[in-house]
């Protein structure tokens, strides 16, 4: 008589669950929040210092209007203004940039101007309202 031995292969699941929990704990502990924000510094003119800063030599004027930027009174394309600011920044990183913003501008226009100044390495910014 021939006996048939049917062997059932069973995968031991209990160890696999432990490994899954280990991986879960590893990813939870090593998770890092991705930073997606930038903080653009704005120097507000201190009371009484506005006039003094306007008379300071080596100052660059950047005007912000809705959808339009002007540098030293001349309207230019955003890329051109970026290149000009980089050139100014290379000449003098400590140059003061007076950012004059029109009341009807939007936040995105202001952020574009500040971003261009940051790219050029110009940190001395004064944001004032264009009246």
């Amino acid at each position, binding site marked *: 008589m021939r006996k048939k031995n049917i062997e059932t292969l*069973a995968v031991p*699941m*209990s160890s696999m*669950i*432990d490994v899954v*929990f280990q991986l*879960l*704990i590893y990813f*939870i502990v090593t998770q890092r929040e991705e*930073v*997606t*924000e*930038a*903080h*653009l*510094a*704005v*120097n*507000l*003119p*201190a*009371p009484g210092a506005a006039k003094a800063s306007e008379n300071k030599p080596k100052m660059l004027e950047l005007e*912000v209007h809705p959808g339009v930027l002007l540098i030293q009174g001349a309207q230019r394309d955003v890329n051109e203004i970026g290149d000009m600011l980089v050139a100014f920044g290379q000449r003098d990183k400590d140059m003061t940039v007076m950012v004059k*913003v*029109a*009341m*009807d*501008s*939007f*936040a*995105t*226009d*202001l*952020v*574009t101007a*500040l*971003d*261009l100044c*940051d*790219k050029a390495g110009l940190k001395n910014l004064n*944001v004032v*309202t264009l009246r």
Partner: protein
Amino acid sequence: MKQRADDTLETPITSMIDIVFQLIIFFVVTASIDKDVQDEAIHLAQAKSAPAVETVDPRSVTINLRKDGEINIALMPMSPQQLYNFLVSMRTKGGNSIPILIRCDAKTKYKDIDKVMQATAKAGLFRVRIVAMLDE
């Protein structure tokens, strides 16, 4: 006589319950109340070349400014006068080096941003930053 041994594979659940409790305790202990509640209604303007923020000063005050001009701090609406009073109290507690972060919507009008900046300048706080989204 043939004896059949029915081997039923059972996964030991008791250890798994212990692991689940461990995880619950971990999350309860590490959970922290986020004091800088972000206003989801604000869609930040994009900055193409500014660097990402490395560390945020824990003393910083985040002022949310929606596109309709509504000011709120941690989702608590404020008028410009209330904002000024709040900033004065923060300055009294923490000094004038407290960073102010203005999270404004891309479509917020500058006149509303100006109101906030006027309030911060009047309160004697000059470390103001505009928060922008990084361009990915």
